[in-house]
């Protein structure tokens, strides 16, 4: 059983059975940014607060931040993005994931949007 939640800032977090969260940016966000050419990911072991800037995204149009949807400790970063940042454009919810973290407080997820609520916010 996995849980998927979104933020109003266009990040997603998927919680696996072991309670580890995988974070990335949404399809809407990658469309807005256009071709992504660089991403700077948080170091493994870094403590992130909910809403803290966790990663920097540079696209052909702009620079943007990916905030951590919840507080936690980074357990893994997606090193494949260094050579192929385009994976974020091609598969933002899959191979384009940014980092994984161990959640400090799973209750923080309750303040995030579920997929339907997020889609309703970004649909125009």
């Amino acid at each position, binding site marked *: 059983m996995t849980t998927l939640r979104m933020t109003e800032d266009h990040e997603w977090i998927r919680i696996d059975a072991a309670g580890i969260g995988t974070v990335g940016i949404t399809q809407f966000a990658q469309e807005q940014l*256009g*071709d992504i*050419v*660089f991403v*700077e990911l948080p170091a493994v072991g870094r403590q992130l607060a909910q809403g803290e800037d966790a990663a*920097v995204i*540079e696209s*052909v*149009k702009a*620079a943007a931040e990916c905030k951590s949807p919840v507080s936690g400790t980074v357990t893994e970063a997606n090193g494949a993005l*260094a050579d192929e*940042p*385009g994976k974020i*454009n091609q598969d933002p919810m899959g191979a384009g994931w940014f980092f994984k973290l161990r959640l400090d407080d799973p209750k923080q997820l309750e303040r995030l949007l579920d997929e339907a609520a997020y889609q309703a916010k970004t649909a125009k």
Partner: protein
Amino acid sequence: MVPFAGYEMPVQYAAGILAEHRHTRTHASLFDVSHMGQARLPLAAAAALEALVPVDVLGLAAGRQRYAFFTNEAGGILDDLMFSHAGDYYFVVVNAARKVHDFMLLAKHCGAEVLADRALLALQGPLAARVMAGLSPATGALAFMQTAALAIGGAACFVSRSGYTGEDGFEISVPAGEAERLAKLLLAQPGVAPAGLGARDSLRLEAGLCLYGHDIDASTTPVEAGIEWAIQKVRRRGGARAGGFPGADVILPQLEHGTARRRAGVLPEGRAPLREGETLLDAVGRSVGRLTSGGFGATVNAPVAMGYVESPLARPGTGLTAMVRGRPRACRVAALPFVPHRYYREKTP
């Protein structure tokens, strides 16, 4: 679509900026640049135009085009433009964001007639010549910066072999009512795809070409900007029509003695682009310049930037530091352009 100088413009089409950029360098791309201002001036206005720009207007032969810039009394640049001798008149193209200023200036001094009913299409890339030859064989006789009035797909066009990408290509002024049909005709040719403003910007940056309002403006002189090649000998000291343009007493001495700062290419280490406005520091942390354009060069496959640097530091290879979000990024001054221009030059006999 985004607003740009009062126009709704596509930043990119479905392929995206990187793909559109690369397609332009390998095939040919069609850009709709109808937002740019077009006007015609009587030939009798040549001397009046020379009073506004430090460029040889009177010496321009029919069928040829030149790059120029309007200057102010301080030697700053009010806009850059292209003008061509169309046989019976001068044809002028100016930047969209400066149209009002430029047209008022040209109407006052040169009797300009604004061509509001014409669109402008740019076909750019190594396949452009073949595509154009298929629609109008006479385009094959044009070399870089040459122009001709030609029928293309039945539309009465004014064509110049020039562009803003560093590639061979054409800019086509076409009656607005026939622009959509001509655009569709060009897009139907093998190897042609549409490209938007995003690719146009990254292509011109790789080609080391200035964007008005960013790399050049009223606070930069042509010599600081490194575009003094556009000032012909006849308008320089010792020339038959030396001076006689706004800011000549600033620009002419700069041509001989240089300037305190120069526009230069900047290449950062790593993959993250540098951006306009970022400060450049020397080895001891002193502010020595500022970036005016920055982005990702899809053909060099690395971030590229340009900006103004103190002249002694503007030599290629100089190591500098750019401050990005408060953190230092190592970079070095690089020669412009970042990719060689591939214009179709006239053969010298």
